[in-house]
């Protein structure tokens, strides 16, 4: 039986690309126009027709309000999030609030969800593949930025489903790039993937060997990409124009769209030439029916100056990622450049300088991600495949504990599938139920993380706080699906959820939830260990106290002896204080000192006797 065909789709912020493995060779599938990438744009034309890709891009200037681009920036986001706020200000199309605190886009009075918009793009990619292959395609692997959280991944999966695709796996873009890079060659090395696209920046470190691709570490910034470079150019143009003509071009949507186009065009041109003309005739008309033109020259040097901090930011993130992976720059044996922005000479130079090696050539920055997705697709369905991708969780996972803190069970960058358990206890006397809030993120404070889901475990035995033990187990499957189980260790009763979507709560709402539920929380069980430590401490303490009068009588005669009595008293007090504060590390330390004290006491006593 021939194995089923699986396409790989790089669903980009700016451009999308589709690929497939044919007879063991991964190839990019060109669209009808012969282009290997398709703009991630969706528009509704005046006649109500839906336009996707190049056609949508071509009419964007004249139909800016009904043309959606960079929808990926909004996918899986909450209405109240900063990402959405900025988009509302900068996007020419109408963004409104959806019923689930999500985001909707209005095009010619029709309301679309973001997954719907993405689904149109995916549908287009599916069609491109089907025309090329001459058969229907069902299955796909879709890539997302490494930094996408669970909600964004889920929304991307939803988009796939809406488009009629069975999304068999979501993988990270940089991972896909490494797969394409390492495919068919027997390399054994650590590589860095530097991906600067239209809207996001990602850096990942992978270990390749023997057909296995292991992600060691991954990080990035979902708000750093080519559009930011474009915006710098636009700002510069607008500023100069305002200075010369006292007119703010931003006020005119049409002008702004044209500015965006020329800015990006100029930026791309400056990757191959040193300076370029920017020409926008009739950019705006003054009140007196008089048209103004915009005409200027932008040099590569000026562009580099305008965007220097953006490039620096990417390098800072690289440095941080290496540090987190406990690697030095010298450990990286190859750097793979991904994303259209890496065509900019200054970017290449900065990367080469930082890693101290020339980025590897020969992998096409626009195609490599889709190729990798196709390779992973083939590897999954083909039994004879000798490729394995070991992916990691991009964010830490855990639960909220008393005080609104986040207790991590699974650390960021843990290889999946994985599971982890931890025992928690009740926080109140006679607490009969606990609420488990499942969170994702890196912050210590629960409300600063993403809430993935919640459930309640009831029917606990009435007991004093800290007595009832609840074991919480996290499991992440190979395809990244998170399930969480809580078990009453006494009764064996349990409750679990499979995290499927974000609840769409804002930080504020989570904070309110924390307040409302503070009586149902759990806390980390340090109790048992503490009790053990306390027993041990108290045993030593008793003996020290017993000997105290006798010892002080023997030794107080000398200066050294008086010092020793004072110190011993200090140690006893320290141990008492640690017990009262239930301070485990403090008590451990104090017990050590107590033991030394006791030894000294015994020595003193036995010496006098003998």
């Amino acid at each position, binding site marked *: 039986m021939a194995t089923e065909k699986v396409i790989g789709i790089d669903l980009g912020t700016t451009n999308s690309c589709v690929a497939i493995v044919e007879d063991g060779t991964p190839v990019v599938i060109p669209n009808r126009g012969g282009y290997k990438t398709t703009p991630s744009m969706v528009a509704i034309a005046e006649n109500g027709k839906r336009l996707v890709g190049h056609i949508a891009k071509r009419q964007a200037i004249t139909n800016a309000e009904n043309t959606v681009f960079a929808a990926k920036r909004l996918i899986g986001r909450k209405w109240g999030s900063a990402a959405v706020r900025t988009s509302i200000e900068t996007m020419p199309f109408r963004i409104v609030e959806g019923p689930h605190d999500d985001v909707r886009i209005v095009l010619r009075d029709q309301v679309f969800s973001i997954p719907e918009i993405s689904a149109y793009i995916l549908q287009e990619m599916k069609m491109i593949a089907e025309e090329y292959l001459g058969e229907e395609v069902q299955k796909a692997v879709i890539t997302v930025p490494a930094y996408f959280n669970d909600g964004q991944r889920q929304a991307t999966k939803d988009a796939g489903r809406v488009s009629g695709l069975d999304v068999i796996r979501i993988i990270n873009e940089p991972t896909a790039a490494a797969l394409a890079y390492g495919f068919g060659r027997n390399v054994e090395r650590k590589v860095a993937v530097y991906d600067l696209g239209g809207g996001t920046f990602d850096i990942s470190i992978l270990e390749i060997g023997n057909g296995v691709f292991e992600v060691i570490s991954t990080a990035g910034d979902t708000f750093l990409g080519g559009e930011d470079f474009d915006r710098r150019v636009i700002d510069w143009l607008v500023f100069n124009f305002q200075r010369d003509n006292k007119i703010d071009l931003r006020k005119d949507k049409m002008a702004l769209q044209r500015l965006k186009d020329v800015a990006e065009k100029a930026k791309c041109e400056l990757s191959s030439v040193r300076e370029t003309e920017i020409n926008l005739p009739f950019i705006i008309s003054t009140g007196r029916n008089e048209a103004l033109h915009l005409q200027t020259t932008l040099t590569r040097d000026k562009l580099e100056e305008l965007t220097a901090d953006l490039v620096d930011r990417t390098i800072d993130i690289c440095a941080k990622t290496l540090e987190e992976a406990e690697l030095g720059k010298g450990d990286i044996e190859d750097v793979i450049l991904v994303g259209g922005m890496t065509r900019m000479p200054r970017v290449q130079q900065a990367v080469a300088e930082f890693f101290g090696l020339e980025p590897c050539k020969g992998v096409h920055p626009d195609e490599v991600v889709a190729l990798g997705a196709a390779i992973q697709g083939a590897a*999954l369905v083909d039994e004879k495949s000798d490729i394995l991708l070991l992916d990691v969780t991009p964010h830490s996972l855990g639960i909220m504990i008393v005080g609104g803190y986040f207790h991590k069970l699974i650390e960021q960058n843990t290889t999946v*599938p994985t*599971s982890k*358990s931890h025992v928690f206890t009740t926080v109140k006397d006679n607490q009969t139920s606990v609420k488990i809030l499942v969170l994702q993120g890196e912050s210590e404070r629960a409300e600063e993380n993403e809430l993935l889901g919640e459930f309640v475990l009831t029917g606990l035995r009435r007991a004093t706080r800290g007595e009832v033990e609840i074991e919480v187990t996290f499991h992440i499957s190979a395809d990244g699906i998170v399930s969480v189980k809580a078990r009453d260790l006494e009764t064996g009763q349990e409750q679990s959820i499979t995290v499927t979507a974000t609840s769409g709560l804002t930080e504020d709402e989570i904070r309110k939830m924390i307040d409302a539920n503070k009586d149902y929380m759990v806390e980390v069980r340090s109790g048992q260990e503490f009790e053990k430590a306390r027993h041990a401490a108290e045993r030593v303490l008793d003996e020290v106290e017993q000997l105290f009068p006798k010892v002080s009588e023997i030794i107080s005669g000398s200066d050294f*002896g008086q010092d020793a009595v004072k110190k011993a008293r200090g140690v006893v007090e320290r141990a008492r204080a640690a017990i009262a504060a239930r301070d485990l590390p403090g008590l451990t330390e104090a017990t050590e000192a107590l033991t030394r004290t006791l*030894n*000294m006491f015994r020595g003193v006593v036995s010496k006098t006797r003998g």
Partner: protein
Amino acid sequence: MTPPRAAIAAMPARPAVASAPAGPAAASAPARPAAASAPARPAAGKPAPASDDAPTTERDPAPPRGGRATVQVLDDGALDADERAALAEDVEIDVDDRRRIFAMERRVAAGDPLAMLGVTDASDKKAIKRAYFVLSKEFHPDRYYGKRLGTFALRLAHLFDALAKAYATLTEDAPRRRGTTPSDAASRPPSPADYAAELFDRACQAEVSGDLAGALRLFASALRVDAPARYLRRASRCAMAAGEAGLALEYARKAATLEPSDPSTSRVLAAAFKAAGKLEQAEEVLVMAVMIPIENDQLMHELQADLADLRRRAGQ
């Protein structure tokens, strides 16, 4: 392209389960997938040199090429009831692969990360990684993507998780391994205490020659195997010299737990507290130490000198 899995399985380099170093525990340990969370370290006997000569049941059932001796396998008595049931399960994993999964589960249940990956204490990081990658390819659930897996879905997930954790455990101690080259393996003495002593000697040599970082690595290796107060004191001093105050204190505290009334230990502990900026505790240790009657005047004198020195410094 690389050959298909069957071919890889035949390669000698592969730390295949069939030729794995399997302790006696492996044969009797119940193959519980839940053992994925088994303790990272074996209880005793480290470093257990990988023994290839322990004939176990895992080795026997290797079926003749092409032959699928399912019934024979069930009869050989090596499988427990749980495994027998799993062999009879209607899943899309062939029988040999299932047997491998059982064998791997036993290795995991034994709890030794070295044995799990089929490497030895002398293996370097690269060798460990290779072993991990090869085993991952065999036991990662993705190998059976889209197949009907029944109870094996969970078995594989747990197995892989255990492998990944073993790999993490072994490679987190990377400095330790960098110090030992594969050539040391041949000359490694059999008893853990002897082995630790040898490592300790080499650490002292490194320290004397001025390679403090190398010395600390070797001390860490030695202490992992055997940790008498004497080693701990020396290691603590070395850590202080290298500016690793936290590590120095950790070693000194351990030494003091072992020998609380030993004056040398007290001196080291006080010095470590001092290096960590905990002057009060340093003083406390010395004040008590001078009260403990000892025979050795010289040592007593040194303790008092330390105390005077500490007070002079604290006074400044």
